[in-house]
């Protein structure tokens, strides 16, 4: 199984999927020290995004979010790769300045076809996500 999208931030990563059908705000929504989602009522509240292939529709919130992604990456708490349905500048810029591979414009069916814990590869240069197996 392969999803073709668009390259946003270059690089290659392999890891476990973490899905969120809701948008994510990194500023205020993610603890910058631990990578745990803290937004009240968010479907991923209490879960860590560390080392995951984080798949969510799009970013939201303050542009300071780009800096939070950078901080997470510097303290090794960031996701290994980011996959969006529709990228917006907060998360896109955050991924680029942090060197996190990122792609967007993947089919929305990805939320039905993948499960948390699945192993996937993300090719940020070519904009491709490849399913490798159930975790």
């Amino acid at each position, binding site marked *: 199984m392969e999803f073709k999208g668009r390259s946003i931030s270059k690089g290659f990563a392999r890891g476990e999927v973490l899905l969120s059908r809701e948008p994510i705000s990194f500023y205020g929504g993610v603890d910058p020290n631990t990578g745990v989602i803290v937004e009240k009522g968010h479907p991923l509240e209490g879960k860590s995004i560390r080392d995951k292939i984080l798949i969510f529709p799009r970013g939201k919130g303050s542009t300071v979010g*780009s800096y939070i992604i950078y901080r997470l990456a510097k303290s090794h708490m960031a996701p290994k790769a980011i996959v969006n349905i529709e990228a917006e500048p907060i998360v896109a810029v955050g991924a680029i300045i942090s060197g996190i591979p990122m792609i967007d414009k993947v089919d929305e069916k990805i939320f039905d076809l993948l499960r948390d814990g699945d192993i996937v590869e993300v090719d940020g240069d070519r904009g491709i996500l490849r399913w490798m197996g159930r975790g």
Partner: protein
Amino acid sequence: MYLTPEEDKILAGEYGEGMRKAMEILVAIGKIYDAERLIPISSAQISGVSYHNIGDAGLEFLRDFSRGAKVKVKATLNPGGVDLGRWREMKIDKEFMEKQGEIIKIFTSMGIEPTLTCTPYLVGNLPSKGEHIAWSESSAVAYANSVLGAYTNRESGISALAAAIVGKTPMYGMHLKENRRPGIRVVLKTELRYRSDYSVLGYAIAKKTGHSIPYIEGVDKADLESLKLFAASIATYAGAAIFHIKGLTAEWMDFEAPKDYIEITKRDIEEGYGFLRDEFREVDMVWIGCPHTSLKELEEITRLLKDKKVATELWITTSRQVREKAERLGYIEVIEKSGAKVIIDTCVAVAPLLGKFQTLVTNSAKAFYYSRGVNRFKVKVANLEKCIDTALRGVWV
């Protein structure tokens, strides 16, 4: 997006890591918004300066990013979190002060002027009609597009910085004339008496029109200060990048009045003031200067405060340059003799004042929004005379 051979070289890292990262940011944004290519800019205004807002995450990024990076165009800075000369008086601790100082030093090392103001157009960063620029700070963006007729999107601090380093920005949104076309005609059916009325008008229009670009009729006159307050308010409440006012703004003649139509009546303005007034009587602080005050506003405040004593904190925020001019004219001495403070480099919305004051009166609807959100104040909006009168009385009457 099309890149010139030269731009490709930058992206490949031939001009160093700083330029490469900056170009990568611009290309990603250009892709997201389907920009055809990059266009040269003549100026940048960079936000994300207050340590209170960007925190250690922002400081770390700037430390790394600034190595070897220099801006190519005139670039000015938004306010930081503290008046560098009077942080003790502002009840701000030393650690904050040091981190704020480092942030400003990093920006300066990249060739950015430490103007530390949200009104770059009052301190020499004044683009002409038709110039492409990359500004962050939403109030300045709305002012530049509408009043000056310059072309800028609502940039973030990082995208404006990247644009300043490369000297270009992706061509989309507000850089294309057709996207500046008004979508709704707003007919004002009441007279605006005070500048704060213009600020409340921004809120009232936003409430009725949402995200449509307004073409406003019925505003006969507006000085720079009124337009500055209006721009800040409509940018806050509607997310507006541009507005047109018949007879006043830079491009109103270039477009026909849209067919869709709403009215703003006296009642809308009154209801606006009603919404923009929390319940309280005892006043801790009065704040004028969102956006930063001009020399003319300082002159008016001087007149209102002459030989009087304030009963609350009265903070007037402005830029260093305007304060220096006012000092030479003797305004600052009169104002500060009353007990008021003319504070520079920062503002009440981006300073770390959480818990230090509870209630605030101001003449700006933008200040209402951010003082409540960031510093949890209770806030009332009133005209300048009423604000100063409240500072003298100590209570809202």
